[in-house]
């Protein structure tokens, strides 16, 4: 019983999948992590938008989107795309670098165009196009803003993300940028890019340090928790909180000149759209798109905030 249903289902899915692939010339696979947190949610939103737009512009291109909630599932997604859809190009935002390197390399060797987004693979030279986020730059821009906002120096606390290479690169960039600027980092703890965790950490920082000039929350989700803790404690020594990644609510507060949120540093989830667009352009035209494209982390201030505000995005 179970087997027959499964076979029938599989056969149905296969025919459904195979039919449009025959009718169209170019198939591009897009494999990304599922929307399990704010930034990934924004990334999923921008991926879907880019796919809708491109399928309208280029009727001969078929885009296939798969979202995975762990690296193993992502590997299966990619294998399925190669086996059942015969993709000509693959755009992949690796869940983790190590487990995805081998499978993506195998796909590349079969002659498929590879575009890697955000975090790189563990072996160089697999991808044809690398659309990279700039984590060290994210930390550096944050540190430079902190130094310029506290010209006399000052005492700050910092919240870190989930312990990963990404987080380490950001923190190293930040520390290098504030070196010699007379800024004392009183404490640094992991808020795990999570509102509740950062709320707890900030409450304890406020109990521990009677005088804090500013907070580097390093992420807008964490900034939400930090702001709630400061508000509840009724402390007015904290002059501002610097988040990051460009959540729309936070961008709006910067745009509206909220003194607590004077700036933001971008790490745009829309970089997935850049990668999909470039890949499709490379497939349908003779314009060269191979190489590395680094998306800079930019400082958002009240003057330019309107340009970074996307009202429809979930992030």
């Amino acid at each position: 019983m179970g087997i027959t249903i499964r076979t029938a289902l599989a056969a149905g899915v296969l025919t459904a999948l195979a039919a449009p692939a025959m009718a169209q010339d170019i198939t591009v696979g897009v494999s990304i992590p599922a929307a399990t947190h704010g930034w990934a949610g924004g990334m999923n939103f921008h991926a879907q938008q880019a796919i809708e737009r491109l399928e309208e512009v280029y009727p001969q291109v078929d885009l296939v989107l798969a979202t995975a909630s762990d690296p193993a599932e992502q590997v299966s997604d990619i294998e399925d795309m190669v086996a059942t859809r015969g993709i000509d190009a693959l755009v992949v935002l690796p869940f983790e670098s190590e487990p995805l390197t081998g499978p993506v390399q195998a796909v590349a060797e079969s002659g498929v165009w590879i575009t890697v987004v955000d975090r790189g693979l563990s072996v160089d030279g697999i991808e044809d196009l690398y659309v990279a986020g700039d984590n060290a730059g994210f930390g550096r821009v944050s540190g430079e803003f902190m130094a310029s906002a506290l010209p006399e120096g000052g005492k700050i606390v910092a919240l870190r993300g989930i312990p990963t290479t990404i987080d380490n690169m950001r923190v190293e960039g930040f520390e290098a940028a504030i070196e010699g600027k007379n800024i004392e980092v009183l404490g640094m703890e992991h808020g795990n890019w999570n509102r509740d965790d950062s709320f707890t950490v900030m409450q304890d920082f406020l109990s521990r340090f009677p005088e804090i000039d500013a907070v580097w929350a390093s992420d807008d989700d964490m900034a939400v928790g930090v702001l709630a803790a400061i508000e509840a404690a009724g402390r007015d020594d904290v002059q501002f909180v610097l988040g990051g990644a460009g959540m729309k609510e936070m961008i709006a507060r910067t745009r509206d000149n909220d003194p607590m949120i004077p700036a933001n540093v971008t790490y745009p989830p829309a970089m997935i759209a850049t990668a999909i667009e470039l890949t499709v352009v490379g497939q349908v035209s003779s314009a060269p798109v191979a190489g590395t494209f680094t998306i800079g982390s930019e400082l958002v201030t009240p003057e330019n905030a309107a340009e970074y505000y996307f009202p429809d995005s979930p992030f």
Partner: protein
Amino acid sequence: MAMTDAEQGSKARTRLPPMTVLGPILALVILVLVGAALNSNFLSAANLTNVLSRSAFIGIIAVGMTFVITAGGLDLSVGAMAAFIAGLMILVMNAALPALGPGVPIVLLGMAVALLAGLVAGLLNGFMVTTLGIEAFIVTLGTMGIYRSLVTWLADGGTLSLDFGLRTYIRPIYFDGILGMTWPMIVFALVVIVGEILMSRGVFGRHCAATGSNEHVAHYSNVRVGRVRLITYAMLGLLVGIATIMYVPRLGSASASTGVLWELEAIAAVIIGGTVLKGGFGRVWGTVLGVLILGLIENILNLTDLVSPYLNGAIQGVIIILAVILQREGRSA
């Protein structure tokens, strides 16, 4: 043996109480002393209020979990359930805002939604465990995945946020209170008192222990085993709803990362407190100590620089195991 020791404690009062009773108390006292020695702000009213208020969510859930585990069950879905209920509560309140406006009715509506959703979710778990006879671990693992996906779906992968004006209106539910106690602390205390009475003085507590200890014997002793189990799950669901009512006013948002690992924290608190994981014996006051121990460890680690933040999880793990060993040694002695 240990159980009878604990129960007949009054006879043996001339000597020290057994380690099953002393263990968690000792662990808590040591933690308080360590915290006070490391940071002078540790015992300040503000810090203690912070720790007690934010421990209240896990605490309220853990009291319910004590009954479920005592009756021989387990519920892995509570964290995801809390996230789902929080999301639902926010959506309903936002939707009702144009009609009702910020005020008491909309808060009551939000609370009713949370309690009802919790009760239904709990009954659903209980129904599948008792009537359909599926292993509790599997049922609640399944519902955990379902609720976690549902909240991600409701939030479209992002974050569900309460309307800003409404958030300002309901903020006091988490941050205010009476007589220096915040509302989450008061609600937690009430839940504990009712739970302790049910567990140690009521018939229901004895039926839970009998069910968890030996289902067949309990059945022949005229205990309605299925109904007892169903009630424990329903009660836990209701308490998850209550915890969510306290949680939503704090940050006014819910996302896929809300309530992650709450189920394990609640289970850890129950076990640290001396309830037996395989069922048959439970105590609510012990669970309270377990919750406080877990809350204080995190607080102390944040208040000091002694340990690299990379090792926070390891310290928590060591203290959890030590707290349980303290009790076991008492048993063998």
